[in-house]
């Protein structure tokens, strides 16, 4: 077969991964759900007419409207409104956008940091490897949410309050990223140890290719499979970590609520019968994290050569 004559689409279509994908209903369902969520979150301006971040567009008299199918519900607020008259659906979609941005950025941050440290550690070995690996050991003993709380606390101490609201999202990305990088470092180091003794690496070394090029051009593509798998699962963890931090009140400010902030705000109304304010963001978070996890599971099964 001459692969050069095939289009990208055909290459994908003929691949093992595609075959495995269409044979797995869970993967298809979770992918469809994720595509819908991603689309609605990133194009929310076109999906809903409401902008919950613009306080002047809200009317307090709309507050606490129940979902539209209940007795007192209004058709214009499908999932009801919260205590300030914000449309729940719009608020959730805007919130999930923030959650997704934070989740993705945190995972990419952790991936870049973890893979570069793990790769170099595995490749060079020696004292350098030992130091990096002991670092990951130490950090793995600290629960990641505690680590994130610590980073957030320090950031609050050194960043002035005026700047903090603007910086909050970056602090959150850094806090979650820094608490997740050891996973990536360990996996990529283990994979590098296997790869670096293979013939293609030896060949490159003999013809005098520099270490940097060997590592990032030759080894890196071969260790990306396991890294992508933990990256996907890490995304779900990062989104949940963001929600946890926001629920504890140290995440994004309430004026730009993420899913966790919404659940926290709704929590005050659990006893008073306004269940929808906390229920919908919570169920949305569950569906989001669950779909990503299912997709991650499927990727692990497919990409793991030992299971084939």
């Amino acid at each position, binding site marked *: 077969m001459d692969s050069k004559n095939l289009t990208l689409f055909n290459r994908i279509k003929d691949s093992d991964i595609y075959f495995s994908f269409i044979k797995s209903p869970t993967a298809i369902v979770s992918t469809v759900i994720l595509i819908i969520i991603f689309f609605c979150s990133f194009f929310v301006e076109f999906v809903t007419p409401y902008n919950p971040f613009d306080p002047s567009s809200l009317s307090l008299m709309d507050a606490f409207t129940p979902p539209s199918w209940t007795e007192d519900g209004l058709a214009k607020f499908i999932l009801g409104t919260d205590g*300030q008259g914000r449309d729940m659906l719009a608020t959730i979609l805007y919130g999930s956008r923030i959650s997704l941005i934070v989740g993705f950025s945190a995972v990419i941050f952790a991936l870049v940091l973890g893979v570069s440290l793990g790769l170099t550690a595995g490749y060079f070995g020696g004292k350098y490897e030992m130091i990096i690996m002991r670092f990951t050991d130490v950090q793995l003993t600290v629960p990641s949410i505690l680590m994130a709380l610590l980073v957030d606390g320090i950031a609050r101490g050194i960043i002035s309050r005026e700047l903090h609201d603007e910086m909050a999202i970056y602090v959150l990305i850094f806090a979650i990223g820094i608490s997740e990088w050891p996973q990536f470092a360990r996996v990529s180091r283990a994979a590098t140890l296997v790869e670096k003794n293979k013939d293609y690496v030896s060949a490159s070394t003999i013809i005098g290719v520099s270490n940097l090029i060997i590592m990032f051009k030759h080894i890196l593509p071969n260790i990306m499979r396991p890294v992508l798998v933990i990256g996907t699962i890490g995304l779900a963890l990062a989104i949940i970590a963001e929600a946890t931090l926001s629920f504890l009140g140290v995440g994004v400010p309430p004026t730009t609520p993420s899913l966790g902030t919404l659940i926290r705000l709704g929590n005050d109304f659990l006893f*008073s019968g306004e269940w929808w304010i906390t229920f919908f963001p919570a169920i949305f978070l569950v569906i989001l994290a669950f779909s990503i996890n299912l997709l991650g599971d499927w990727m692990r099964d497919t990409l793991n050569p030992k299971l084939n």
Partner: protein
Amino acid sequence: MKPKNLLKILLAFLFVFASTQSFAKTIKWSMQGDSLTLDPHAQNEGPTTQVSRQIYEALVTRGLDMSIGPQLATKWKAVDPNTWYFYLREDVKFSNGQKMTSEDVVFSILRAKQPTSDFKEYISTISGVKAIDDYTVQIKTSKPNPILLNQLSNIFIMSKQWSTDNFVIAPQNWDAGQETFSATNAMGTGPFKITLREPNTKTVFKKNGKWWGDVEHNITEIQLLPIKNAATRVAALLSGEIDIVTDAPVQDLARITSSAGHKVESTPQMRTIFLGMDQAADKLRSGNTGDNPFKKKEVRQALYQAIDIEAIKKKVMRGLSEPAGIITFPGVTGYTKALDKRLPYDVDAAKKLLADAGYPNGFDVELRCPNDRYVNDEAICTAVVGMLGKIGVNVNLFAQTKSKHFKELKDDQGDFYMLGWGVPTLDSHYVFHYLYESGASWNKVNFSDADVDAAIRVMEGEVDLDKRNAAIAKAWKIVRDNIAYLPLHHQVISWASKTNVNVPIRPNNEPLFRFSSVN
């Protein structure tokens, strides 16, 4: 383990459990915030006084019906308009067993007059105090003071000996963040004494066996367990972990009432919630216009008329508030229905006022709010942010815990802030003296008016009630017309408790556990 041993252990547990149930009467009390300090003269703040009131006593005090009656003094008389004699009870002992004498009273009044005291405004007219004999105190005022007794009911008496031994002769300097022995320890003559103090976590009061009064309560221990989150507080109450909540969240009252083991009581509280705008600063700290829009009365009025107080009442307060036109409430000398009428809610008029004042596109400002002090404080502020957004004023909300909020306000950091004011003396003078007088300690809007200051002097020294009332009415009219503050509403408070816990509700939100019982 042998079954027999297990049975013994179970029996032992049962015995311990049964005995604690029948002998110890503990009330677990919760509210959203804690007392800021145990020093009885350092902070003039509701929950702080509520805690001090259980441990410390004053010369005179308000009973359950809010009328002034004797406490540490049995009787008093004014020999001339400026000289008072107070005759003390002779059987009063502090909880460490030491006798209370006139020395302690003189010491405490002088202590409350020191610069670090937050109660000095209460007794600013007292010019001299001295002990005539062990149980007689003479108080001299700089001018005739018709409300001296009301003011003295909030000056708690400490032990001179205890204060000297523990280096707390001067009140804790709360504004400067000072920590003293008296801030975390308390020793008074009251019906309870503090045996454990963990700020913001747990405070344990035990019955004071040396108390002089007739014991009407049957409580051996009170535990104050502040729970900031409203839902958590209600959950703790419903699950039985807490016996009484003195600030039950308005949204949860229906749920609590529907529980068979719980009851809810509500009463209009002697407290008005309002917003302050700094009218003296040349430039707003958080503004974007380079000047101070609040200097113009039109701007203040625009903000006033942009606030839909009825919507706040209906949606945020669930009907449990009374829209306010002035920062005082029925029952206070000087209050009238006519003064309490609000300017109408009118967005178009507000926009026009703002444009006339030179801010057609509005301006930026930061609103500072406590989030654990008043009923739904943060939710009110969030609602205000939305309403002001409709007239183009871009408000950035900054809500934080009350101890930081108050400290930073006192530190002159607020352009636009929320505050609530109660009137323990039930006299308008208290409001003017703290909130409106030029340079007053809580006058953080920096309002200043010579006529108001003159009227305050009349309120302090005029015994002719008609003349005094005229001065009060005049002062209210000036500050109301000037829109010195934006009044929001009079708070209604609700206490929720187990049905077997009886703590009489009082409009100043202060529980008196000496009149309480657990059945």
